[in-house]
């Protein structure tokens, strides 16, 4: 500070070295975790496949044929067989990645935005605002997540929009709870007190101190929800409450292929395997991020 009485010359002249930023440290730790890196590569590959799918599918994913229904894996020209309407499984799985990933990731992103806002407000403002928000959240917490998703989506009716809405509502309470807990913790730190004493406005404190310190842990928590969201979103389509035919989506494909488990069992199991690979990869990346960022669960 300018008030310092110590002579300036006493300050040793150390060559200024830029310390690596927080995210650089996290990235360095994350890179050393082979499992997490492997899972991240799988997710990147799935995303690239999803984006490029319309141009790279070997067959037309919508072209059906009565003549080649339910061909086994390894059929010439149809390496992963064909579905109950004779459509190419490989092409449909590739194109299906689009909707499946979209339906799994979007609700968590939306819930992250809304939930952390609600939680940070509750944690920062405190008092009766906190009580009102947190008690409302407790009510939603009183439902098992699968039950709440199905209740909302069942009442709203089938469709992508309704499925996304129900999933978002289900993921807001847990994210808001974490956000509230982290914010309450940060708020009582000395540096926030110091900022307030030096005249920083509430908005500045939230922007610089609360967001800067709380968003990381909230984000890690949110990433751990993507895997659940993938399973639930595909589950809704599996029940007929999400994506509607003929659009390919893994959960829906699993549903329409259920009748084929006695004729072409391994073809019928393929969409579920895709959901599993995606969900476990997200879980492993999230675990890796958690330990790289040193967040306690």
């Amino acid at each position, binding site marked *: 500070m300018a008030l310092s009485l110590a002579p300036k010359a006493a300050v040793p002249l150390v060559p200024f070295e830029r310390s690596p930023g927080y995210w650089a440290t996290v990235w360095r730790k994350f890179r050393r975790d082979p499992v997490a890196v492997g899972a991240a590569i799988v997710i990147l590959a799935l995303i690239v496949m999803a984006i490029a799918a319309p141009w790279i599918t070997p067959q037309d994913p919508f072209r059906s044929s009565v003549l080649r229904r339910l061909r086994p894996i390894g059929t010439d020209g149809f390496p992963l067989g064909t579905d109950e309407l004779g459509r190419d499984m490989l092409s449909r799985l590739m194109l299906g990645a689009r909707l499946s990933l979209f339906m799994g990731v979007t609700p968590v992103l939306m819930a992250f935005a809304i939930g952390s806002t609600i939680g940070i407000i509750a944690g920062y403002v405190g008092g009766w605002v906190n009580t009102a928000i947190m008690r409302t959240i407790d009510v939603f917490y009183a439902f*098992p997540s699968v039950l709440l998703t199905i*209740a909302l989506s069942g009442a709203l009716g089938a469709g992508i929009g309704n499925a996304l809405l129900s999933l978002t509502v289900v993921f807001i309470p847990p994210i808001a709870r974490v956000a509230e807990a982290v914010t309450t913790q940060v708020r009582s730190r000395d540096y926030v007190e110091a900022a307030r004493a030096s005249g920083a406005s509430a908005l500045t404190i939230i922007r610089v101190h609360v967001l800067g310190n709380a968003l990381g842990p909230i984000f890690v928590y949110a990433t751990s929800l993507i895997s659940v969201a993938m399973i639930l979103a595909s589950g809704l389509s*599996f029940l007929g409450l999400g994506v509607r035919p003929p659009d390919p989506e893994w959960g829906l494909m*699993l549903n329409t292929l259920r009748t084929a488990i006695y004729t072409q069992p391994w073809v019928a199991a393929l969409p*579920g*395997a895709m959901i*599993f690979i995606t*969900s476990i990869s*997200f879980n492993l990346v999230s675990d890796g991020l958690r330990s790289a960022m040193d967040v306690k669960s």
Partner: protein
Amino acid sequence: MLAYIGRRVVYTVPIMLGVSLVCFALVHISPGDPLVSVLPADASEQLRLTMMRLYGFDRSYPEQFGLWLWRAVQGDLGTSIATGRAVATEVLRAAGNTLRLAALATVIGFVFGCLFGFVAGYFRDSWVDKLASLLSVIGVSVPHYWLGMVLVIVFSSQLGWLPATGAGPGGSSSWVWDWEHVSHMVLPAITMSVIPMGIIARTVRALVAEILAQEFVIGLKARGLNEVGVFAHVVKNAAPTALAVMGLQLGYLLGGSILIETVFSWPGTGFLLNAAIFQRDLPLLQGTILVLAMFFVLLNLAVDVVQTMLDPRIERG
């Protein structure tokens, strides 16, 4: 401790009110006229108004909620539109089937979860630990409805060992504890047990590792207590939390059984929900969800109370 339990019980009342409000709102967020499914397509305006009055849809929302809640408290959850039977009867019958399945799944999950968790916690960073961690990641990442299908493919379609669907031979509706019936339960129960298994294994592993690192364990060892004696202390310290997690998992399974019940055509609450959704049977949907959610709230309360009684250290404010 009694004060804590009292506070905890009182705290449950507003939660239950909130849960009822959400269940009540389900019918009203539903698009379209809720009477459409009960009325014939050519119903006269007169009939529509009579039905509206009969179902109470002509009153204000707070009035409707009060009336609905008052009836629900007395055990009247309305009448199913599809079957014309009382919702409460339908839900209770189905709940018995789901509870049986979920309880068996929880027991399987608890036994194996504890086994993996203890071994992993005792031999940290060994290959057993890595295997147990892998299993628990798989347990929480696998889409269980798909796992159910794979088990059906392997054990019913390929090997022919176990039946794939239903709760008894020839669609029998009454439950008997014989192999004919129990064999129908094996695959869905194993499928269902995977989630609690992973979560319990994770919890127990962390608990055991934490307890073993505490000074009293070193103290016990220093005083010459053998491994079995130390193990008994570890179990005693880990039990309250592990049991609490198990209790909550039972609740999650009961509420989340719809996907597994759909795969296995198990005649429980999930199957009922599925039917309610596709027949647009809103009273049945609402009633089933209300019963399951209330059960979950009460289970949470019971778990908290039992946990406090087992381990007075965790008495919370």
